[in-house]
């Protein structure tokens, strides 16, 4: 029966052309990021005095920057940072967020209450501002970026899992399990977690898109992964001062950010349609 449901869901997903496009786009991005060294025509950090700020041509499809570095190669290598930060920070945020949320829902005592109040506080800040605060404190670097964005995204997961867990915990079989003396972690792991996993996965995909966008914003503000590592936000940031004479420096990496965020949004959208029974009819 479960299998049937899954198959039906897969069918719905595949029928959703937009979602399928998103799926392939993401796959493509992941492949590019994985094989960046092979795909990129040049070393992304190789400087060349003699071909600085050349406009896009056959040799350099996306032109070169003021160090003479190949923009296309930098965009390709930049995908690694965006994807890695996006995915890792969401995994990090998901783990701490959903654990906190599930715990709060189950506990419903003082600590649980405190957790949810903290979530409220964090949610009233724009994501960027909160992340900036963190980064000012802990400094720059990829690991720190992942940590900061993860922490910023965690409250969303906490709220999600809190709500879902609350609705599940009153169900009979959990009451029964508790009555039989099952330990809390066991209940959470065996009964609650599988139930909220689906919903969390949908949101993971949508929020990965958000995380990639936040990473780009932070890089744009100069708080991202330090140079010479190519990141899309950094590239736009340095490129924008040359907008009048070398627009390719900011436009191509900007497009890359947009495509990556779009890809994850498309998948998330498709997955949500699959999960939402109401929208399946009609």
């Amino acid at each position, binding site marked *: 029966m479960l299998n049937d449901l899954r198959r039906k869901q897969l069918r719905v997903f595949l029928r959703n052309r937009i979602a399928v496009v998103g799926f392939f786009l993401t796959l493509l991005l992941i492949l590019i990021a994985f094989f960046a060294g092979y795909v990129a025509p040049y070393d992304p950090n190789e400087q060349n005095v003699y071909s600085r700020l050349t406009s896009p041509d056959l040799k350099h499809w996306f032109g070169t920057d003021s160090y003479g570095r190949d923009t296309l190669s930098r965009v390709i290598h930049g995908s690694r940072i965006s994807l890695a930060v996006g995915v890792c920070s969401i995994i990090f945020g998901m783990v701490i967020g959903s654990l906190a949320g599930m715990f709060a829902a189950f506990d419903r005592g003082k600590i649980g209450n405190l957790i949810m109040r903290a979530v409220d*506080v964090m949610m009233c800040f724009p994501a960027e501002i909160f992340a900036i605060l963190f980064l000012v404190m802990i400094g720059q670097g990829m690991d720190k970026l992942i940590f900061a964005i993860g922490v910023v995204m965690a409250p969303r997961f906490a709220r999600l899992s809190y709500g879902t867990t609350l609705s599940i915990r009153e169900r009979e079989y959990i009451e029964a399990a508790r009555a039989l003396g099952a330990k809390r972690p066991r209940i959470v792991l065996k009964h609650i977690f599988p139930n909220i996993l689906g919903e969390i996965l949908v949101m993971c995909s949508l929020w990965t*898109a958000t995380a990639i966008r936040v990473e780009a914003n932070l890089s*744009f503000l100069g708080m991202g992964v330090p140079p010479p590592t190519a990141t899309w936000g950094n590239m736009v940031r340095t490129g924008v001062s040359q*907008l009048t004479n070398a627009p390719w420096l900011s*436009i191509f990496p900007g497009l890359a950010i947009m495509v990556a965020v779009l890809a994850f949004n498309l998948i998330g959208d498709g997955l949500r349609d699959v999960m939402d029974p109401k929208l399946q009819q009609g």
Partner: protein
Amino acid sequence: MIKYSIRRILLTIPLLLVVLSMVFVFVRLAPGDPAMAMLGQYATQEGLDALRKQMGLDAPMWLQYLRFLGDLLRGDLGVSMLNGVPVVDQLRVVLPYTLELTVSAMVLGVLLGVPMGVYTALRRNRSADYSGRVVSLVGISIPSFFLGILLLYVFSVRMDLFPVLGAGRDGDLGDRLYHLVLPTLSLGLIMTSYIMRMTRSSMLNVLNEDFVRTAKSKGLQERIVVYKHAFMNALIPVVSVLGIYFIINLGSSIMTEIVFSRPGLGKLMVLAMKQRDYVVLQSVMVIYATLAIFINLFVDLIYGLIDPRIKYG
């Protein structure tokens, strides 16, 4: 209703306090300090010590915190650590710019997003719906700074239509509005996408309900009545998420202010951060948090007004 509002406002006070304390600790844990930022390459040890003392940074952190809270209670946000300008004066200059930008973007988002969302819902699965969905997905995927740069490049650099950065001359309304167009578009179109998607899906939910389905078979007169009713019902969830959208909007406005070189909270924050001006940084954070909290409160109240099911107790 009034009682409810007062209670909500009172509830925000501890919330603000937590936010403040957090900001206070965070900015002080950051490496670098304002004395160093000010003296830079010419700093000598005695110069640094004297300046730190003058800035009140030599006191233990808890004392600084108490002083900060005490001043705040008296409504005193303090003076900039760097040039002694009262923070209130700086905020008074800067806040209107951020407000005019974020509010006009929000207004644009509602004015475009709601009708477009309704329209695409009514045309479900037709080409208008598909293109609408794709465009709005692109809209929520594009970073605000990139949309800003694109608009700047196309309309300012290439076409020379809106050739202006900055925020326009003071007291010249036309000039202010002129400078507002592109920044508003870059934030507003993103808001449009969010609101359009929300409106579409909530409208679809309502359209699936029985009373609407029945109305389809009835006469024209009744159909209009029902659609009107459906529309009002569909609006409720849209209004409820406006607060969240506004917070997204507020976050994006930092980047937009930088791209368009507009004065504003975001620019003030980035500058204060670079110079480690704790006092200004704290105040900006307080303003952001207050804005976010009150917008949410405001949205809640409106929500109560349009949703008859909510009773204030």
